[in-house]
């Protein structure tokens, strides 16, 4: 079966972000960008399913500015077969992303879609659920284990109380949690090989999708700073402070 993975270009998770002085957003100029870590896990899972003989082809899709091409190349270097870039300078919100992915999926007909449970920039945690709703497909979110057989996926999900297992009919959308797998690094030969793999570029207009943002960002601010840094010298002093100064025990 064909699998489709969606990969988002985000500020690298190690970068300490800075809020712009005019409060319009977060500084992205001259900042290291990487693939959303949850999407790396999605790519890795698709690769493992291909290595297990279940998946035959992996299509990596990214949506946004022209540089998202680099994110697709990373997925191709990890082992995905080909890429689709939906290029636009409009800030894409999850509903628009889900609609664009749906349009690509109707062209590509994958039986399995794997994407990260959330992007570490907007922390929305919406796209996979929205996509499966728009397609009328089942969803298995926050996956920590995936087993595919007989037209079904049995997925173990990380939930607040522990773990839960659901069985969903394919085609379906799965969103990845942290412990699903450990993504591989792309080797140098594979990075070279990835440069020759095809990437098709399209646009929201060509796909017939209105991507006008539904949410307006009024402002972006820094959170209040914590005044920390005080040290105590002993356990007795700590307990003392907690009892008499902080009064929390």
């Amino acid at each position, binding site marked *: 079966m064909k699998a489709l993975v969606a990969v988002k270009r985000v500020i690298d*998770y190690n970068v*300490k*972000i800075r809020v712009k002085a005019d409060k319009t957003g*977060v500084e992205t100029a001259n900042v290291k960008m990487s693939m959303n870590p949850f999407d790396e896990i999605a790519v890795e899972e698709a690769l493992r399913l291909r290595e297990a003989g279940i998946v035959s082809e992996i299509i990596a899709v990214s949506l946004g500015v022209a540089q998202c091409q680099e994110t697709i190349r990373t997925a191709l270097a990890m082992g995905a077969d080909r890429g689709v870039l939906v290029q636009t300078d409009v800030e894409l*919100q*999850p*509903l628009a992303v*889900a609609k664009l992915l749906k349009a690509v999926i109707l062209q590509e007909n994958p039986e399995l879609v794997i994407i990260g*449970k959330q992007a*570490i920039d907007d*922390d*929305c*945690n*919406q796209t996979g*659920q*929205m996509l*499966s*709703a*728009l397609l009328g*497909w*089942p*969803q298995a*979110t*926050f996956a920590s284990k995936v087993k595919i057989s007989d037209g079904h996926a*049995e997925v173990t999900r*990380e939930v*607040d109380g*522990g*773990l*839960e*297992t*659901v*069985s*969903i*009919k394919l085609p379906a959308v799965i969103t990845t*949690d*942290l*412990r699903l797998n450990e993504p591989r690094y792309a080797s140098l030969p594979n990075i070279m090989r990835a440069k020759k793999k095809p990437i098709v570029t399209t646009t929201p207009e060509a796909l017939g999708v209105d991507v006008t943002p539904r*949410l307006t*960002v*009024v*402002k*972006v*601010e*820094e*959170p209040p700073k*914590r005044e*920390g*840094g*005080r*040290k*105590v010298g002993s*356990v007795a002093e*700590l*307990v003392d*402070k*907690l009892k008499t100064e*902080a009064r*929390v*025990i």
Partner: protein
Amino acid sequence: MAALVIAEHDNRALKPATLNAVAAADEIAAGEIDILVAGKDCRAVAEAAAKIPGARKVLLADDPAYDHGLAENLAPLIVRLAANYSHLLATATTSGKNLMPRVAALLDVMQISDISAVVSPDTFVRPIYAGNALATVQSKDPVKVITVRGTAFPPVEAEGGNAPVEPVAPTDAAGLSEFVGAELSKSERPELTSARIVISGGRGMQSGDNFHLLEKVADRLGAAVGASRAAVDAGFVPNDYQVGQTGKIVAPELYIAVGISGAIQHLAGMKDSKVIVAINKDEEAPIFQIADYGLVGDLFKILPELADELERRQ
């Protein structure tokens, strides 16, 4: 304006996080808040929800299709009910996060995830970038679909009201998904997200067995036990212990971080705690920068000493 709050429950009891979601709804549509209890054999939950003083009425959808909260079955029900409401709210827990975007997409609206403040009925504050920035966003959609960060809204009272319980007809099961089973952690300790005191361990704990040192302190304090991602990834403790950007968000009166260096992804889950204590052998660990009280030293000496000191002074 009227709001529908989706109750979180296990068919037996109402989860306390529901009270935080009602608190957020109260800031939007006070006096016009209905609560939906959808489940199987869950009348007791509906009766509990009816006691919430802010509730106008409780809608009870009792059907086998809603037994395990499968989003494929629940979303069409909420979409059908949505015509009567300007706002649909659920908790930003794994169940709310799983369900509400599906509802939003079917209604063709953007969800507003994980709100931490209500500015006005169409404008909300939500943390982005692991809480390192706060975005104020305004929705132009006719229905606002919202998940609520529980720690940002003190819970409303659970008792004192007497709202009517109205049954609502179920929708058909979607037939797309099935519940297979669950492995839920059992603990005598308070629940992590609502505990007054939380003590968490990180990579510095070195093994799952060593968590008993934390548990001893937790027992003296009546605290919940949490962990950093590193400790969960290393297999020391189960996934439901994880505090952080993509795990649980906690904001207790007292948070004690033990052997946790303080990666931004962890801080995202606990930095709104009232008082933070850090215990770490590395005095350069970033956790100390946000800790109200830092104690540098070997946690394997400090934890037993702390348990003894707490016992002595109780």
